[in-house]
């Protein structure tokens, strides 16, 4: 698979933007040291990491990219299972849940859409509680079946849509192919995180869900979504087959989904009393915090694209 010129240029621009961001963060941490600048430095660091891996992966091979995405999903699932209460008897069930990761990403890699889309929601959904029942411990069964299934859906199933985007993009996304489509999603979603954060800091007043995440404000959300829409309208026609207006719509869709993913993970952490996941349990604020917006944005955007551009309804 040769990587299209468009993707190369996009990567070059991202490298330039990140260099600029690193420079600003470096100056900020010198002039105004504190929590926000530490958080910023940490974020920028993880973006460098992501774009670095992304570049290496797409340069070498799509299979490598898929394995990499599968590994991220595995780490997210492991973090989830380590955070939630589990039953000792369910160790084998959890092992099966882990084993579904390579299988699910294999379906994504081969592009077997039908299997990809039912494997976890149907087969694993039916299979895991069955094992629990045969193990015979009814105490806590419902809770265990619920949390294990939800976690598997929320991490592995949702993130496997990013891998499916590579496959579907190669078929239906013109010259920019799968790499272009995935880059569009990841860039837009990450940009939206920053845009909503920045708008919230500058103008935020009214919290949308104060009980879950007091610093997610209506002003931040609207300002962020509009900015994201504009940037998506700019980059979409370049990285995808979507024309300008459709790209703008995709930007809004990704902004909304990203927001929901973000607050959903916040709700999980609140429920588990790990509000600041980085502080209370060191390192746990790892993968889940980084992929939270993608857990909603990846499936929503893939099915948006699938419905309108693979299904030919646009």
């Amino acid at each position, binding site marked *: 698979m040769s990587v299209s010129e468009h993707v190369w240029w996009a990567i070059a621009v991202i490298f330039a933007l990140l260099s600029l961001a690193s420079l600003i963060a470096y100056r900020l941490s010198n002039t105004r040291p504190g929590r926000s600048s530490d958080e910023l430095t940490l974020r920028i660091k993880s973006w460098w990491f992501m774009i670095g891996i992304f570049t290496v992966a797409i340069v070498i091979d799509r299979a490598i990219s898929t394995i990499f995405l599968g590994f991220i999903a595995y*780490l997210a699932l*492991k*973090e989830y*299972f*380590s*955070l*939630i*209460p*589990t*039953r*000792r008897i369910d*160790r*084998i069930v*959890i*092992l099966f849940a*882990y084993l579904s990761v390579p299988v699910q990403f294999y379906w994504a890699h081969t592009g077997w859409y039908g299997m990809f889309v039912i494997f976890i929601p149907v087969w694993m959904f039916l299979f895991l509680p069955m094992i629990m029942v045969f193990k015979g411990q009814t105490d*806590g069964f419902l809770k265990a079946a619920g949390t294990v299934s939800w976690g598997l859906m929320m991490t592995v199933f949702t993130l496997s849509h990013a891998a499916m985007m590579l496959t579907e993009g190669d078929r239906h996304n013109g010259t920019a192919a799968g790499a272009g489509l995935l880059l569009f999603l990841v860039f837009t979603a990450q940009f939206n995180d920053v845009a909503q954060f920045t708008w919230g800091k500058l103008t935020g007043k009214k919290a949308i869900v104060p009980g879950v995440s007091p610093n997610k404000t209506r002003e931040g959300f609207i300002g962020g979504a509009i900015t994201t829409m504009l940037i998506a309208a700019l980059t979409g026609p370049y990285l995808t087959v979507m024309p300008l207006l459709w790209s703008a719509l995709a930007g809004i869709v990704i902004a909304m989904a990203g927001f929901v993913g973000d607050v959903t993970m916040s709700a999980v952490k609140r429920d*588990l*009393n*790990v509000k600041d996941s980085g502080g*209370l*349990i*060191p*390192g*746990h604020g790892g993968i889940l915090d980084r992929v939270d917006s993608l857990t909603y944005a990846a499936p929503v955007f893939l099915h948006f694209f699938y419905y309108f551009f693979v299904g030919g309804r646009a």
Partner: protein
Amino acid sequence: MIRVLRYGFFALIVRPVLLLLLGTNIRNRERLPPEGPAVIVANHNSHLDTLALISMMPLRDLPKLTPVAAVDYFGKGAFGWFAKHIIGILPIDRSGKTPRRNLLDGAIAALDAGKILILFPEGTRGEPERLVTYKKGIAHLIKIRPDVPVTPVFMHGLGKALPKGTYLFVPFTCDVFVGERLIYCGDVGDFMSDLEDRMNVLAQQGCFPTWE
């Protein structure tokens, strides 16, 4: 040759496997002893405890790291050879055949040679993720070598990944809390209660989900 095998085993097998399949979060890693003689004291939940502790230390310290283990458990076969030479355990005879006053001779010699001992004062792998009362061997050892610092380490998660009585390994993140070093205070009983307090404080730093 065995030295090379030991390095190879830890550098090429244990470390990558622990990194990929477990992932350890270490809090206050800088409190781990930088040089021997020293003692690391940890809670014992799993066969993985020793491997995880050894992997936490820099690879160049490998020749110094000496886990103390019961001789009867590991025996004389291939398993015993592996435990002695590759894991590098210092066997302690808990059968009662060795006279009580000679029991710690090996450990003392190791400390005098500048080694870093790894001790599990719970005696055996207990019920996973539960602290039990400590055996006093550590205090008697430190009474003889009172200048040696003792670093308490609390680990959580390995007992979920590979608990006693099973060979089924299931990945869970492992949290490690390193405490400040303890110096012998002059009394065995006080030292033990001090150590237990420190371990309980470390255990409370984490916010661990229930696991029944």
